[in-house]
């Protein structure tokens, strides 16, 4: 393999794939990135056997071929090089020479034959959606996923393709985020997939603002194709809990609140919480929302946010982190809070189909 490429291009390419490489792995080959050059392009691949990522970089290839190199080391080398054009040549013993300006490196790699091949896809259901739309759906929901390994079904987000709609749901059992979008697909492609959090993070990092995204899914795995990128991931097997039953059909009160104002007020009030005392109390009174934190031995915080409200006074306590999560990722200026009483779930909604259900806290 012998080729030339631009430094900026290879850095961008490696950034897209190397986050999949896990820092500690029992198989040395999994610490490596596969470099594979054909006539026109250099293909870069990385995998942790759960998620595999492949992308392409423009290159002038004088001899095609492939090798694998330690991801972290090769990325650092490319980043530190001072020239803009890099020459790379790998011999048949997988020793790679890198020349750039006055620098020369020799890196010992592992044969491309040892690199796990990308999973093959036969058949499966296919869907097409706009990259930017899909990324936003993931961003607006995935933070609610659980990282508790004992609840592995919740360690990701549910993609539900049903009735001309894609619904993305994530929950950790204490709050739940849901976004919906109209998507066209044939009736027989209705399916539910649970996408692992690691794959979601990879997609959120690499999906663009526009352009088409092709999703292809079988029972056990899913592939995402966009631009030069290909992300293949295993799916979480199991039954996702019935999320519809925990979305309140209706709430007593619906109150419009200015999003930024609420977010910064909760953030300030949360300054008075501790690990042992993690709740803030929201009190809706006539035309104002009071956010109060009272922590023994620490002190208290009191914030007032103006709202249009004339119903009865309601108080409810939430974990401020859980309340702030959706407020950070939503874009609309105004959100709606739906509250019933101190024991019932609170709901955050926006004009677009977004629902966030948050269980309150009992404070004694």
């Amino acid at each position, binding site marked *: 393999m012998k080729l030339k490429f631009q430094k900026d291009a290879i850095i961008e390419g490696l950034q897209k794939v190397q986050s999949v490489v896990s820092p500690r792995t029992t198989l040395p080959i999994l610490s490596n990135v596969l470099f594979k050059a054909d006539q026109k392009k250099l293909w870069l691949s990385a995998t942790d056997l759960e998620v595999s990522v492949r992308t392409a970089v423009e290159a002038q290839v004088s001899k095609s071929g492939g090798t694998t190199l330690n991801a972290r080391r090769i990325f650092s080398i490319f980043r530190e090089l001072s020239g803009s054009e890099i020459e790379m040549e790998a011999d048949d013993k997988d020793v790679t020479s890198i020349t750039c300006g006055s620098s020369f490196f020799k890196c010992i790699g592992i044969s491309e034959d040892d690199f796990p091949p990308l999973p093959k896809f036969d058949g499966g259901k296919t869907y097409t959606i706009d990259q930017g739309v899909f990324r936003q759906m993931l961003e607006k929901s995935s933070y609610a996923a659980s990282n508790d390994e004992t609840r592995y079904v919740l360690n990701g987000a549910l993609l539900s393709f049903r009735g001309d709609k894609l619904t993305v749901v994530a929950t950790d*059992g204490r709050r739940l985020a849901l976004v919906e979008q109209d998507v066209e697909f044939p009736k027989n492609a209705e399916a539910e997939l649970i996408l692992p959090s690691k794959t979601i993070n990879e997609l959120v990092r690499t999906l663009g603002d526009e352009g088409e995204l092709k999703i292809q899914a079988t029972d056990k795995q899913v592939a995402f194709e966009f631009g030069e990128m290909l992300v293949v991931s295993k799916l979480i097997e199991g039954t996702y809990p019935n999320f519809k039953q925990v979305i309140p059909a209706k709430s007593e009160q619906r109150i419009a609140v200015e999003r930024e104002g609420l977010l910064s007020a909760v953030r300030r009030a949360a300054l008075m919480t501790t690990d042992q*005392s993690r709740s803030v109390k929201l009190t809706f009174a006539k035309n104002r929302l009071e956010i109060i934190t009272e922590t023994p031995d620490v002190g208290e915080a009191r914030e007032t946010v103006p709202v249009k409200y004339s119903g009865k006074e309601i108080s409810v306590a939430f974990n401020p982190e859980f309340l702030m999560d959706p407020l950070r990722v939503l874009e609309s200026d105004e959100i709606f809070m739906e509250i019933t009483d101190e024991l019932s779930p609170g709901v955050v909604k926006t004009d677009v189909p977004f629902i966030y259900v948050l269980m309150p806290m009992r404070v004694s």
Partner: protein
Amino acid sequence: MAGEIKPFMLFSFPRAILHLDGDAFFTSVEQAVYPSLRGRPVVTGKERGIIACASYEAKALGIKRGVPLWEAQRKCRDLVVLPSDYETYSLFSKRMFEIMRRFTPTVEEHSIDEGFAEISGLRRLHRTSYEEIARRIKEAVQRELGITVSVGLSLSKSLAKLASKYRKPDGFTVVAGKHVHLFLQRTPLEAVWGFGPNTVHLLSGQGLGTAYDFAVKPEAWAERMLGKVGREIRSELRGEAVYSVTTEEKTLYASISKCKTFTAPSENRDFVYGKLVRNVESAFIKLRRYRLRARVLAVALRRRDYEQTGLEARLNRPTAATQEVMPLVKALFDKLYVPGASYRATMVVLTKLQEDREAQFDLFADRLRIEALSRASRAIDEVNEQFGKHALSLGSSLYLDRNHKTDRDGLPWRKTDLLKGETGRQRLNIPRLSVKV
């Protein structure tokens, strides 16, 4: 060759920390309570069949802690075997620390029978030397409680602990700063607080023989061999106190565990399970008393041959309700229990504890059931408050009477000879002497 042996420092007492250690504490207390037992070989631990504590008279006959009773009785036919009376021991313990606190407020209750006291800077107050203050503390404890204790006085907790062990029983050892190097040369590695058999092997493999050999090694060497602890122990041994005497009583628990050995090992599944459930109940009572909730629960069964198996489970949500975890306890027990095996103890450990001040409701959980279970736990606590611990308990405790009685079942005298108004659970909070007047 080793260079010239120099003292670590020229000061006597830049800090003065003393360690006070009860001599054969349990049996000493028994001998104090029953003066007729003085001078006789006495052991406690009848209820377990294993010696918990042996008096110095018994030790002289080669009877040590941890030895099975039958073996000890073969060695000495006149051996006095007593059931453990922890109530009286803890009353004596409390008094012992109270006496220490008369001299200095900085007293650390290290265990039931040993404690540290910092007496730095108290010479002016007591108008005498550190050595004399330490001697007064020792004498006050011995005079007022009728037991003997060993006292070590030095510059750090580690040195004080070594000093109190140096001469025992009734020992009094003072190691001043300028003498530390001489003292350590006479101290074997295994005597050092924090050095277990593995560490000793590691260090003797490096050619070390005494605590002195370790203390003169460079700091970096100690850290490389044993990590941060190694560096700390080295400083402590050189008379630079790292560990301070902490006076706080333990209120924040990292874990709660309950382990009970049965009077005779049992092969009865229901009985063993009943014992485990009783431990779970006790652990949860303690959990609620400290207003905590547990996130992780571990269960272990110990067989007659001390072979022990255990399993740990993480709960979906932290809880303080006994009945909420019972299905899990049952499942863990079923996985561990081997039919036909003979068991001697069950235990439960609750970890990942957090305060029960607030609770996050769960989307998918059955909240009514959880509320009902925690109300049930509160009700059980209230009933037991009035009628005694475990008066109201889970059904499996009905099997607890199934184990056959043995001669080990004797209760301490304190629990059989009740004063008017005392009950099996509540007794007067003062030690009673068994003397006829």
